[in-house]
């Protein structure tokens, strides 16, 4: 966007947040305004910093697992999966197929739940109040499955290093099948409310444009990158668990080389449909067998190894770098949170837009401040 001065007004700096409801937590955005128009912005983060990476150095490998649930607290299952896999990679442990497919089913359910929460709150920010009620209705179904499986709804801590602690409860497969059959119709309902709605189109189309080369330069991942037309998904590029054994597509935005808020909305809706596809295939392939690999009660990886393992979390590439020093505690754990990296592109997207569009742009990145600040 060209730097144009509107109405010859003086530059005004205002703070949006940290208590603004549309900033999804405690994000403070310093906006430089020229009238209603944003000429520059700065994100101030750290209000939710808990030093999780430092805590890891004083906990055993297993003890740190509940902490990672508290980073991206709306997608705790995928967080836990990434951490468990990183440590398993460090140990060179093999996971039995039943545990792999169970992990995939729960992770994809979590992706749907996270996208549903995003859809509801994003629409709420833009003035559409109804979708949030509908999406929370379906999210509740998913959380009930988690609750029955591992006893918690949000900070699930569903997986253990080496496999699973809990085997699937009776009726899990039936419940998941029922959900996946029901859910596709519900996505159509959300589309009925939003996809062709004139107000929604006005608020999202051509708002927060991100070019593909900018997205790659800023290391943006996840639906924000795919919305810009780049077909990159860690599940396809570096398959983990059994993602190379199931069929699914990687949805991208409508345009070649750039994407706006509406593109990212379409990508997330398409992703939910793909998740249902993965869940259906994974449920078919669940077979009885062991759920825990050859991992001891005390985890003590050999000294001097470091492992980087990335998974596709609902927000993008979630990576864990784990360094071992031969003790039961990790020497260093570094997390590459997708929200934090994606938030960098905010300034690029917000320039030249109105204040009301800033709300749409914060929403479209799908940030969770627990993950940004850690």
């Amino acid at each position, binding site marked *: 966007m060209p730097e144009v001065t509107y109405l010859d007004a003086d530059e005004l700096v205002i703070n949006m947040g940290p208590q603004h409801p549309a900033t999804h937590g405690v994000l403070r955005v310093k906006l430089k305004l020229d009238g209603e128009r944003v000429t520059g912005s700065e994100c101030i983060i750290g209000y939710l910093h808990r030093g999780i990476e430092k805590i890891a150095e004083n906990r055993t490998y297993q003890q740190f697992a509940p902490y990672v649930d508290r980073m991206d607290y709306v997608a705790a299952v995928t967080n836990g999966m990434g951490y468990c896999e990183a440590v398993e990679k460090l140990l060179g442990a093999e996971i039995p197929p039943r545990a792999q497919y169970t992990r995939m089913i729960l992770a994809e359910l979590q992706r749907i739940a996270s996208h549903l929460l995003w859809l509801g709150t994003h629409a709420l920010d833009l003035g559409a109040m109804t979708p949030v009620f509908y999406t929370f209705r379906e999210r509740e179904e998913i959380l009930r499955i988690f*609750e029955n499986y591992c006893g918690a709804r949000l900070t699930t801590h569903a997986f253990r290093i080496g496999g699973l602690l809990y085997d699937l409860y009776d009726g899990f497969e039936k419940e998941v099948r029922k959900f996946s059959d029901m859910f596709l119709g519900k996505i159509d309902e959300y589309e009925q409310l939003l996809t062709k*709605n004139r107000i929604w189109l006005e608020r999202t189309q051509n708002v927060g444009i991100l070019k593909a080369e900018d997205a790659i330069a800023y290391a943006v991942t996840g639906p924000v990158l795919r919305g810009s037309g780049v077909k990159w998904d860690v599940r396809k590029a570096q398959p983990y668990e059994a993602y190379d054994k199931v069929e699914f597509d990687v949805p991208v935005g409508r345009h070649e080389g750039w994407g706006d808020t509406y593109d990212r909305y379409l990508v997330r809706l398409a992703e939910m449909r793909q998740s249902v596809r993965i869940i259906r295939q994974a449920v078919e392939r669940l077979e009885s067998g062991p759920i825990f690999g050859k991992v001891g009660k005390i985890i003590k990886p050999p000294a001097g190894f470091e492992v980087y393992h990335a998974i596709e979390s609902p927000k993008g590439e979630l990576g864990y770098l784990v360094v071992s020093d031969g003790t039961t505690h990790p020497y260093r754990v570094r997390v590459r949170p997708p929200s934090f990296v994606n938030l960098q592109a905010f300034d690029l997207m917000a320039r030249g837009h109105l204040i009301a569009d800033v709300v749409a742009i914060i929403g479209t990145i799908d940030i969770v401040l627990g993950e940004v600040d850690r």
Partner: protein
Amino acid sequence: MLSLLRTFWEILKHTFRRRLTVQYPEEKPYLAPRWRGRIILSRDPDGEERCVACYLCAVACPVDCISLQATEDKNGRRYPEFFRINFSRCIFCGFCEEACPTYAIQLTPDFEMGEYKRQNLVYEKEDLLISGPGKYPGYNFWRVAGVEIGGKGKGDAEREDPPTDVRSLLP
């Protein structure tokens, strides 16, 4: 205009659907048997404390919210002198239940623990102990363990042979 009408029509259809709201304080939600909620200490079928004060739960706890002190009674049976869980720190991860060798510590389907004073969230042993065996009825650690305690000698435990006399020459 048509798109807006379509949206309205979708919402109108929903007004005739079944209501999903749970009227919470009056109507309690269903909680799964695996629910990780308020922690309890259970008793064995004889009504004695199951906890043998081995400290495994306190070691496994990632947030160090369990503290206890082991002691022995006159029969040589270990039990905790005090057992304290600080629920304002507890994250309900369930590691203590996983670590427990005697099924003493268990997580229950209860989340209604609100308090006005933070100090009231520190539960002592008398607050934690329940009168029943919890999730594992019939299990009695001391009856299957080969440890000698008053009233139960060597070889008296279930599925345990009497001890061999090593000084005897007979096979």
